């Protein structure tokens, strides 16, 4: 299948596909980070994760419309405000959901799956009632639309670079929060041994609520970033939920590095293969490989050593 391309062409193809893969990788990491916090740290299967992401996308859409209508002068920078708001709105909803629903189900992890699936249906219908069933696209400011010309045949789109920058920032923040900050120590303590954590004075309920809110907020940011490379529809979240879960499981549920490594592997494999196979076949091959590897190594790529 490599016949007919010169070496320079192939180099350019791999560079461009590699970059497309990096952008996909960044979005995957953003989506998976939220889930890694919720599923990896708390053990809650949040099937509505995709809907939290879409919420972020719709917030971004609304902000862009608001800026276009009332503040056209500041349109160039609306995106940064949108990201912050997406985080706050999705996080607040997450906090409310945790309080109303999830906290009753910590003893029954499989049941959270069913309940959050119900939640995702409700959210989808809410989006459909408010925004309509059609896909909506966000208008980007001009400076984000262009691309950098590296060489004659290699172009790097700027919005891709922005997505990557956001991802790097959020990943660093999550790493700091969970593994370096005192709050993260409380989170890990509660997850490892709830009773003991409570005994040393940690408010486990509050930690749970904040952790869940953090995961949902990151999903909101992911949705916000997602608007730059795709359009938003009420059911778009469902398309990504399986990929996202696989990324987290493949990486080893409790390991941040594992999540990043597996997001990298999956997205690179997929975007490189998409060039040679059809898009759907590339997805099938990659998913099959991941499932196959998981059958051989069920604990995922990276395992956190834990005494149970």
């Amino acid at each position, binding site marked *: 299948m490599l016949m007919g391309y010169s070496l320079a062409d192939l180099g350019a193809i791999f560079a461009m596909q590699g970059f497309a893969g990096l952008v996909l990788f960044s979005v995957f990491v953003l989506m998976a980070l939220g889930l890694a916090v919720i599923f990896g740290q708390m053990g809650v299967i949040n099937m509505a994760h995709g809907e939290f992401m879409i919420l972020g996308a719709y917030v971004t859409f609304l902000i862009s419309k608001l800026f276009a209508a009332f503040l056209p002068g500041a349109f160039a920078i609306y995106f940064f405000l949108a990201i912050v708001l997406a985080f706050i709105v999705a996080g607040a909803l997450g906090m409310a959901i945790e309080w109303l629903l999830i906290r009753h189900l910590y003893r029954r992890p499989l049941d959270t799956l069913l309940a959050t699936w*119900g939640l995702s249906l409700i959210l989808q219908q809410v989006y459909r009632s408010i925004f309509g069933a059609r896909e909506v696209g966000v208008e980007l400011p001009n400076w984000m639309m262009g691309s950098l010309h590296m060489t004659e045949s290699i172009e790097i789109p700027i919005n891709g670079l922005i997505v990557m920058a956001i991802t790097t920032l959020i990943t660093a923040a999550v790493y700091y929060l969970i593994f370096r900050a005192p709050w993260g120590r409380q989170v890990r303590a509660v997850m490892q041994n709830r009773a003991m954590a409570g005994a040393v004075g940690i408010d486990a309920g509050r930690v749970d609520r904040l952790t869940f809110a953090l995961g949902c907020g990151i999903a909101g940011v992911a949705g916000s970033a997602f608007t730059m490379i795709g359009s938003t529809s009420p059911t778009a979240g469902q398309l990504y939920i399986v990929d996202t879960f696989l990324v987290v*499981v493949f990486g080893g549920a409790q390991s941040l590095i594992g999540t990043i490594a597996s997001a990298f592997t999956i997205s690179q494999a997929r975007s490189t293969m998409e060039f040679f196979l059809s898009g759907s076949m590339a997805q099938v091959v990659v998913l099959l490989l991941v499932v196959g590897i998981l059958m051989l190594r069920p604990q995922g790529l990276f395992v956190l050593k834990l005494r149970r």
Partner: protein
Amino acid sequence: MTTSTYLARKDVLLILLFAALIMALLPLALDPFRLNLVGKYLTYGFVAIGLVICWGDAGILSLGQGIFFGLGGYCMAMFLKLEASSVGATKIQSTPGIPDFMDWNQITALPWFWRPFHSLTFALVAVPMVPALLAFVIGVAMFKRRVGGTYFAIITQAIAAILTILIIGQQGYTGGVNGITDLRTMKGWDIRSDHAKLVLYFANAILLVASLLIAQFVRRSKLGRILVAMREREDRVRFSGYDVAAFKIFAFCFAAALAGIGGAMFTLQVGFMSPSFVGIVPSIEMVIFCAVGGRTSLLGAVYGALAVNWAKTTFSEDLPQLWLFAMGTLFIAVVVVFPNGLAGLYRDHIAPRLGRFLRPQLRLAPTGDGRKQGATR
């Protein structure tokens, strides 16, 4: 163990009541169109029975029952499609004798995996066996390595996604997103007439009741008790010398084979099969109606399948916006408030009162039953 025989007799009585409902009451009360719809819902009853054994008893949550339902359905559809695309019926195609969608996709010969489906016997054997084989492969790979719980659920879900993408992507071999449509006859017998639909409805009902009895037998046997023990304390069962993986594989394969039968009956009654019955959403819906009916009660789960699907049709016809709200709220309510579903409500509230009402002299007997079953979750 006098209570045990009492229970068995009561269960058989309830199954007979159910059989009377679907084989006498509904056919008399409904017009052919509505009856065909009920027949369609009942095919999900097979999946529900399988899920009670696999999820309710053995505690293995599979989010991939749609795979098996779909595989069974596709096996049946492939046979029917081949019969509908005889050389005589497809003269106008550039390659006569192959299904129309293959011709549209410039395929000139029947692919190898379609060939055995010329035979009805092969198709009928394949309906439960293909799903069971796939389940066996997945089960051996997962359970031998002690993968369970949420991981298993996510991986089965991924497999459902893979299969859907594969079916949609390979339209030349599978009919793509439209599925396999335009099915007409089975060994020369037209399956589209009202009479045929009635016959198929009764065949489906009889198969369903038979499956209920088999599943009931499995649950009452020692095997069934080991499954429940495994759900509650897997390690203790393992330490007692049982091969836990083998029992899990059995439960999973049993559920898969039943789902396959359901899929085949679905194809026969509805007249087509498409990837929209295979993927993640239908698979989760199957788990949901099992949960609504009651995951630890065979009849409850079947009634759940009937009720949820009936509600889905009715609501989505009349109030499409409200439907998803209602469905979502229902799921959340079932999980949070009634973890044992409709069957749990019946067992805890209606059955004791009914028992007191029917035979006031036996006031002590029914409460023991309620506690015994209630304590399993």
